[in-house]
């Protein structure tokens, strides 16, 4: 168990560019255990890249990523997949496009990783899966295929799938952006419950109400950097940075 | 195994002659099969069901049977109908026949890729079907059909090797003949492979030129 002083996720001076396009221009962020941090900002501002660098789906060009005090890699540019896989087992990720495995049932989706990566016996994994699916409200869909589910249901399955690995932190990459408006609520509710249970969460989102209601802190991303961060009420109601003010007024005027 | 490429200095004329024949046959088939392919593609879309069905059946046969068999069919069969052709001509006929059907498939999907709205707009403007085809549809179909066209042209190049069966002196059989004399299989056949690669490259150049032409036309119209 980490001491209260060790952040669950700590990134320092993260840089990432795709050719001429700079996605991260020196990002520092620290997320405490049990904290929920929402990341907001315009499209293309680098928010998704930040998440992808944390679990090294895209390795950062520069900078340090610490998960529960453990550094990913040792400073060299290439980190062996073996080591990355160990870290990724502790980091859960939920994607905007759900990315469920379409050729497997919901249940199979959820037990695949625990069995293959953690070596969990199948029966145990299935029991765990049923519990998780129940907690996100899709237990009755366990034998269905993803194509038979609504977007909201698929995303909740995706959350269960990530949780099945018992990660220490959950990364959410715009989890509701691809959903029809009426389906957004059920996913946000599942995420709120997760927050209540004390999961460390880093959420990239456009849902300002969720950010205000559930987060401990809100970080505003602009042009590859976090330019303002603080308590939700401060950041969202009393923005200091001009670009944040512009961003929020654009949102509120639609 | 020691390779002695110096024998190529002696035998290259034979290989060159074979390459020339290969090139001639490829070019001839390409030039003949293309317009036939266009015609077949247009006919295949005809409104009369019998026409479409018979073309589809012949197409299925021509593409489902080994080219070598078609070659033999022309070579042995035509004399029985009173038409006696020398080897090159019968190879040319056979290859043109089956390649026309392969091209027809490419051109058909190229034509189909042009949105139906184009036909409707031209009709609404009072343009005749022929004019529509030539001025509106085909120019838009060409970029879509180009890659398939070039890959089939490459198939023609490779297919000429089969004409060796009816004693056409193309490159592959020339290489075999040279081998039979020199007993240096690797050097000879590698040389032949290089020549094929070179001829292939020529076809690729045609594709690049064609793509550039298509791009320029598109930009000119947009600008």
């Amino acid at each position, binding site marked *: 168990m980490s001491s209260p002083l060790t952040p669950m996720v700590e990134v320092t001076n993260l840089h990432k560019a795709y050719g001429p396009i700079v996605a991260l221009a020196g990002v520092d962020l620290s997320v405490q255990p049990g904290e929920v941090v929402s990341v907001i900002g315009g499209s293309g501002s680098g928010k998704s890249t930040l998440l992808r660098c944390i679990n090294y789906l895209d390795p950062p060009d520069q900078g340090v990523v610490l998960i529960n005090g453990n550094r990913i890699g040792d400073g060299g540019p290439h980190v062996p997949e073996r080591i990355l896989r*160990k870290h990724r087992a502790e*980091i859960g990720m939920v994607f905007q496009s759900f990315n469920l495995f*379409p050729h497997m049932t919901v249940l199979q989706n959820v037990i695949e990783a625990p069995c293959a990566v953690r070596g969990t016996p199948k029966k145990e994994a299935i029991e765990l899966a049923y519990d998780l699916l129940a907690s996100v409200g899709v237990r009755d869909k366990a034998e269905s295929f993803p194509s*038979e589910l609504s977007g909201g249901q698929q995303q909740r399955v995706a959350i269960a799938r990530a949780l099945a690995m018992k990660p220490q932190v959950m990364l959410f990459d715009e989890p509701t952006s691809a959903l029809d408006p009426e389906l957004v609520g059920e996913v946000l509710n599942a995420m709120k419950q997760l927050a209540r249970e004390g999961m460390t969460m880093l959420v990239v989102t456009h849902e300002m109400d969720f950010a205000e209601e559930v987060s401990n802190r809100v970080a505003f991303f602009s042009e590859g950097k976090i330019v303002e961060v603080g308590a939700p009420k401060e950041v969202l109601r009393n923005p200091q940075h001009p670009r944040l003010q512009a961003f929020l007024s654009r949102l509120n005027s639609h | 195994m020691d390779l002695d490429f110096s024998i190529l200095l002696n035998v290259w004329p034979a290989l060159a002659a074979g390459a020339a024949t290969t090139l001639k046959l490829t070019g001839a088939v390409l030039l003949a099969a293309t317009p036939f392919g266009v015609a077949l593609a247009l006919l295949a879309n005809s409104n009369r069901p019998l026409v479409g069905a018979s073309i589809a059946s012949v197409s299925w046969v021509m593409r489902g049977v080994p080219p070598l068999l078609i070659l033999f069919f022309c070579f*042995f069969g035509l004399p029985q109908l009173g038409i006696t052709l020398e080897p090159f001509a019968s190879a040319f006929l056979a290859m043109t026949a089956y390649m026309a059907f392969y091209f027809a498939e490419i051109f058909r999907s190229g034509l189909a890729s042009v949105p139906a709205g184009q036909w409707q707009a031209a009709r609404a403007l009072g343009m005749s079907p022929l004019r529509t085809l030539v001025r509106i549809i085909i120019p838009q179909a060409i970029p879509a059909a180009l890659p398939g066209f070039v890959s089939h042209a490459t198939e023609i190049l490779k297919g000429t090797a089969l004409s060796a069966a009816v004693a056409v002196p193309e490159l*592959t059989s020339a290489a075999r003949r040279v081998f039979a004399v020199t007993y240096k299989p690797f050097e000879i*056949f590698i040389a*032949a*492979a290089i020549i094929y690669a070179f001829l292939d490259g020529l076809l690729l150049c045609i594709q690049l030129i064609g793509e550039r032409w298509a791009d320029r036309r598109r930009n000119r119209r947009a600008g």
Partner: protein
Amino acid sequence: MSKLDTLLTYAPDLWQGFFLTIWLTILTLVISLPFALAVALVRDAKIPVAKTVLAVFVNIFRMLPALLVLFFIFYGAPSLGIRLSPVTAAVIGMTVMAVAYMSEDIRGTLQSVDQRQYAASKALGLSYAHTIRRIILPQAIPVLIPPLMTRAIIVMKGTSIASFVSVAELTAQASRATSISFEPFIFLGLAGVGYLLIAGLLAILQFAAERHVRRRYRLKAGY
């Protein structure tokens, strides 16, 4: 000798040729599929030296006529001290060509699987090998069926090349019967029917495979 007598005299040979053709086709397909899969996976996984070597291999063989490759193997093997029977040389030649083309088919299909599946799998901590085996391949297989079936028909047609090294497959038997009896339409026609029959069987196989796969993965149409 009446036409019927002629037919009956050579029919057994044609029958044998028919089965030899089927046998050559199946043998080539069965041997080349695992190799083609391996080549595609190695290139897809971007393993440093191997991917370049394989890319060169694939592109070279796709440029050359199958007949040249066959001659290279058949006439080149003795120089390496290996005596190859004609059938063996033919199967090796056809397999090499099939692997080159098939690996491209497979590679294209692998890349057509939603790349985000790789991301999801990686994020869960699954290894590359596991991802390919359990996540990517099962999604690629339904999409692979049509191109592989097309390739199977091409392999079938390609078996006629073996006639150049005296393998008595269907085309060879038919042309031999024709040149002796001067009945091209009967024997070459029958051979054509034989090939179309095999193609028909492959088409039925494709239909059954696609239905099985759709049912197994409960995929909706247009997946």
